[in-house]
């Protein structure tokens, strides 16, 4: 076709006609919603639910992370290298001055506890970030510096410190923490020394070696300092995985909500085109309308997400506090990162779905062409394409499973697995229904499957969403439950002694050991010292090998006679983190310092601990660190409470120096129950969203259903039977989806535990299977599908006879 430039000009000034068309066209488009408010509700609710799920999870994550960030920023942890004492936890202040005067640019930190509050003193004049995020500039310097300077804390912490000190309430300070001038904290703690020194990133041209000025200090690299962040990340990984998967589910639901809106207005769009509305104008108008609606849905969703997060956050906060001692504020703030991302998801998803729909509208013949055979052929071609893409993605996932060694690749692997599985679903469902159709010879059975196949194209997106939801739930449930089992076993191992006693001085240590041994109890003294193992920071743990160790400790890898060799001082144990980082395994020899090297007899699982550990016998420890006494004792006893009282009476140790392990264990387990509450709540929400997608797809198809069902009705099936079959079909399809989702979910769990976890934290969690949980999830999925199908089925069962008859009267 050759375009003639003059032609357009003759038609008149189209630019001025555009604004005139906006009014009538927009009124026509919007009139659809006024006439069908339920569809508007469904569209908005679908978007809102998807956004809510995503932004709810984001909110929880963002809130918890913000709390850590506040803590890390306040303490300069993670960002800076630090100088720590090789032994003990104190540095003389004179040493700080000596270092500065030698050209070492360091800044002092003093930490201590008062009334259960962690006090951190810094020198704002030399600290790299002043008082962290604290708004010190609003206070006169003379009110902050010095022994009577003000401290900064959040409202709750300020209350706990009461009137001990002047406090400026600052919500930016991490919960449970009070920050102030080092002079003020020294005065509060009655100390004149320091805990550690931050090494500033920029150092002068020349300075002497550390050993010449402060041989008792060692440099701890920054990456090793951010303990809290590393630990709690393993919990956040759980949530992030959920967020990631809910994002996928959300995209699907946005897609089907939009598809519904388009499908129902297909006729109107055609008419508008026939009456002379230019395609680009119409497309722009529809895009604007949809994006505006999406923005409304997203706003509702963000609000809903906020409520979800607010309801779940106290549990999450309690979980993190209990699990890792990380302080997370239980209150929620509106943070731009999550409500913006919620909006982004809704608008991005809408735009993505719009692009596809508009592409189709642009190619839609202006008048209903009605070439069903061609369409079926196109569908078959699409199925082949999907199957090909699915195979490619799954193959990529399989390859990545062998290669992935960082978190990012782990998530790419998750993405490939999910998308591949989702794309594989429609071809599989098609194949299954094709195989089942000839299985029985009754006409209803055959019609049922043929009809199911006919419906699959319209339902496939919703079914994919359900697949993703179910597999995400299976995967995350596997991960969380495996984590729990492993951790409980680990607690049993590490908390085997019924009573733990901490001492402060060498005299107390000796007296306690003598006293306990005198009573014939099994005593497990523990000595610790920092060390560099294979160039990595680690901790030496001197233990007295006894039956408790032999009975309770489990190994990731071990040679024979592990404990005998450790006891004899001829071998050591490594924890898994160190073994993986240094790639040292049983049989390898490890240098412990002072010219001492010993072979490794075993590697133990050490969950939730970021630092490397070397376990060795007391005798070996003694050779390396003769000055270190045991600060911690485990005691085996049948009556911890009584023993506690006796020790207190005999040795004058304070009550809080002794911990009854049963109490600790119960607390830890309670924490897991909370984790499960959160996981369960999110499980149900994801399934709810997927159910919504099904509902929406069925509604989309409902209008086309009447002509399809009318002949069957005419052949003698009642409307009630037809409705029942519709419901049954949803459940059968959900069952197919569930059966596909189960292996995908297990693969997901495996990736999370064995790939992502190892990459992120350096330890692998053994995978356990939970058939009961999976069965329950299956029931939930079927219920979600049945619930979603119930309303369309009910509507179908009540289709007016006239509507069914009209199908025939319209036939020419």
């Amino acid at each position, binding site marked *: 076709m050759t375009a003639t430039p003059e032609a357009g000009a003759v038609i008149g000034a189209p630019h001025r006609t555009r604004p005139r068309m906006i009014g009538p066209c927009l009124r026509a488009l919007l009139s659809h919603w006024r006439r069908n408010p339920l569809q508007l509700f469904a569209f908005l609710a679908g978007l809102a639910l998807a956004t809510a799920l995503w932004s709810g999870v984001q909110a929880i994550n963002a809130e918890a992370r913000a709390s850590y960030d506040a803590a890390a920023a306040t303490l300069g942890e993670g960002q800076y290298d630090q100088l720590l004492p090789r032994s003990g936890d104190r540095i003389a202040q004179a040493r700080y001055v000596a270092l500065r*005067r030698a050209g070492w640019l360091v800044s002092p930190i003093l930490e201590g506890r008062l009334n259960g509050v962690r006090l951190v003193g810094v020198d704002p004049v030399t600290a790299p970030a002043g008082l962290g995020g604290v708004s010190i*500039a609003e206070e006169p310097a003379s009110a902050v510096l010095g022994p009577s300077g003000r401290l900064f804390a959040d409202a709750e912490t300020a209350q706990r410190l009461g009137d001990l000190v002047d406090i400026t309430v600052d919500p930016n300070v991490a919960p449970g923490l009070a920050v102030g001038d080092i002079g003020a904290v020294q005065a509060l703690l009655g100390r004149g020394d320091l805990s550690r020194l931050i090494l500033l990133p920029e150092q002068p*041209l020349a300075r002497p070696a550390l050993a010449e000025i402060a041989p008792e200090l060692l440099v701890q690299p920054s990456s090793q300092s951010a303990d809290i962040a590393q630990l709690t990340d393993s919990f956040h990984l759980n949530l992030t995985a959920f967020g990631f998967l809910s994002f996928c589910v959300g995209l699907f639901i946005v897609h089907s909500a939009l598809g519904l809106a388009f499908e129902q207005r297909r006729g109107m769009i055609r008419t508008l085109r026939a009456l002379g509305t230019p395609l680009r104008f119409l497309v722009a108008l529809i895009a604007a309308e949809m994006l505006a609606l999406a923005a409304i849905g997203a706003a509702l969703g963000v609000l809903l997400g906020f409520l979800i997060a607010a309801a779940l956050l106290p549990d999450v906060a309690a979980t993190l506090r209990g699990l890792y001692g990380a302080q997370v504020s239980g209150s929620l703030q509106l943070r731009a990162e999550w409500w913006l991302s919620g909006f982004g998801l809704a608008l991005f998803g809408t735009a993505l779905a719009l692009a596809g729909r508009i592409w189709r509208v642009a190619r839609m013949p202006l008048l209903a062409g009605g070439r069903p055979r061609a369409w079926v052929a196109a569908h078959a071609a699409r199925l082949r394409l999907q199957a090909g893409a699915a195979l490619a993605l799954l193959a990529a996932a399989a390859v990545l499973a062998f290669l992935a060694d960082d978190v990012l690749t782990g998530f790419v692997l998750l993405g490939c697995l999910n998308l591949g599985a989702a794309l594989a679903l429609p071809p599989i469902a098609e194949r299954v229904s094709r195989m089942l159709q000839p299985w029985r010879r009754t006409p209803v059975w055959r019609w049922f499957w043929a009809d199911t196949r006919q419906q699959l194209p319209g339902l496939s997106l919703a079914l994919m969403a359900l697949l993703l939801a179910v597999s995400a739930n299976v995967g995350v449930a596997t991960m969380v439950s495996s984590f729990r089992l492993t951790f409980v076993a680990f607690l049993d191992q590490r908390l085997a002694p019924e009573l733990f006693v901490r001492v402060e001085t060498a005299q107390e240590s000796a007296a306690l050991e003598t006293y306990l041994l005198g009573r014939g109890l099994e005593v497990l003294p523990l000595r610790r010292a920092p060390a560099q193992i294979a160039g990595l920071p680690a901790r030496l743990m001197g233990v007295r090998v006894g039956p408790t160790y032999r009975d309770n400790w489990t190994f990731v890898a071990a040679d024979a006679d592990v404990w005998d060799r450790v006891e004899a001082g001829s071998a050591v144990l490594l924890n898994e983190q160190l073994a993986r980082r240094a790639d040292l395994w049983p049989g390898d020899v490890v240098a412990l310092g002072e010219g001492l090297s010993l072979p490794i007899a075993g590697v133990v699982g050490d969950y939730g601990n970021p630092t490397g550990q070397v376990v060795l016998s007391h005798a070996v420890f003694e050779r390396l660190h003769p000055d270190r006494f045991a600060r911690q004792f485990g005691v085996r006893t049948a009556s911890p409470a009584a023993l506690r009282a006796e020790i207190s009476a005999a040795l004058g140790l304070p009550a809080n120096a002794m911990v009854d392990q049963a109490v600790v264990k119960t607390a830890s387990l309670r924490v897991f129950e909370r984790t499960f509450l959160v996981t369960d709540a999110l499980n149900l929400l994801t399934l709810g969203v997927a159910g919504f997608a099904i509902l929406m797809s069925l509604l989309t198809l409902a209008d086309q259903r009447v002509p399809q069902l009318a002949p069957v009705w005419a052949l003698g099936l009642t409307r009630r039977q037809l409705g029942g079959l519709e419901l049954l079909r949803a459940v059968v399809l959900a069952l197919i989806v569930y059966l596909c989702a189960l292996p995908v979910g297990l693969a997901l769990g495996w990736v999370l535990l064995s790939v992502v976890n190892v990459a992120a934290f350096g330890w692998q969690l053994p995978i356990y299977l939970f058939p009961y949980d999976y069965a329950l999830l299956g029931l939930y999925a079927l219920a979600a599908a049945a619930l979603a199908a119930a309303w369309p089925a009910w509507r179908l069962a009540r289709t007016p006879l006239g509507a069914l008859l009209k199908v025939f009267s319209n036939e020419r």
Partner: protein
Amino acid sequence: MNARLLFVLVLWPFAALGQGFSGLGTDADGFATPAPGYAFSFPADHAAHPDFRIEWWYLTANLRGPDGTPYGLQWTLFRTALAPGEEEGWRSPQIWFAHAAVTTPERHFAAERFARGGIGQAGVEATPFRAWIDEWVLEGPDFDHLRMTAQGPDFGYQMALTAQGPLVFHGDAGFSVKSVEGQASYYYSQPFFRIEGTLSLPGGPVEVTGEAWLDREWSSQPLSERQSGWDWFSLSFADGHKLMGFQLRQTDGTRYSAASWIAPDGTLTAFPDGAFRARPLETHRVAGRDVPVAWQVALPDRALDVTVTALNRDAWMGVSIPYWEGPVTVTGSHPGIGYLEMTGYPEE
């Protein structure tokens, strides 16, 4: 260091000068204030005066390398007090900070340090003389024989200084008035140092010799609140005379100036407001500011009319309170060399 904190610490005294009562022994916060007729006592007055709000030991030097390349050098220790007096440990109200710089024709290196008083990280003692912050020191058996070091991440220096003349006292025998309202400081200098030593620069060590000028000033009220900044010149002429002149720029566009004409034997003649004139000839864009880098400087009473030009126009001190400080060359009626400091040029 939190730049805002430093701002509060250092600029707060400036804002608190509204009272403007000079002549009284103390101000409202209990700080001592300068008064005319003070009898300086050495070596004690080389050390810190913790009862005053602010004080500095300010050394600049014009140097030459073996190939004749000109260099500039700065070593400055500041003391500022939150309250008068000194106490032990973190209780001390004294805050110290310091700037060091080396200027070459092409580059400018700067570093800064901070310290709390009372814990030994920084301070100034008279006998033997010792001013230090971290590893930076200016020390010697007496004030005429000093050694000096400082370093940053990419430069450093080690210098030896020998005084070739007496101390000189500005204004009214060391009482230097800074505004028509009467704000003043105690101000004396040692402008006759011979200096030699080694600069450590990225290209390697450079042996240098030259002359240095040490300013000592302390006060509790250095600027009037309607003064926005100052331009300060220390010039050494080929005939052996020296000139210290400054003008304080006031918010109404006027200037307050003062100058000291120093004969080769150390005889000092002080000139009152208006005698010393400095007019910008050319500005240069540095760190988002337009800073004058060439000046016409005149002291008509001494038939002085010279052009002062920056050796390196980019001698910007990008420290917590940024300013321009660098070596200059002098041409015109009295050729020579010197140093120029300019503060209070706003960022645009």
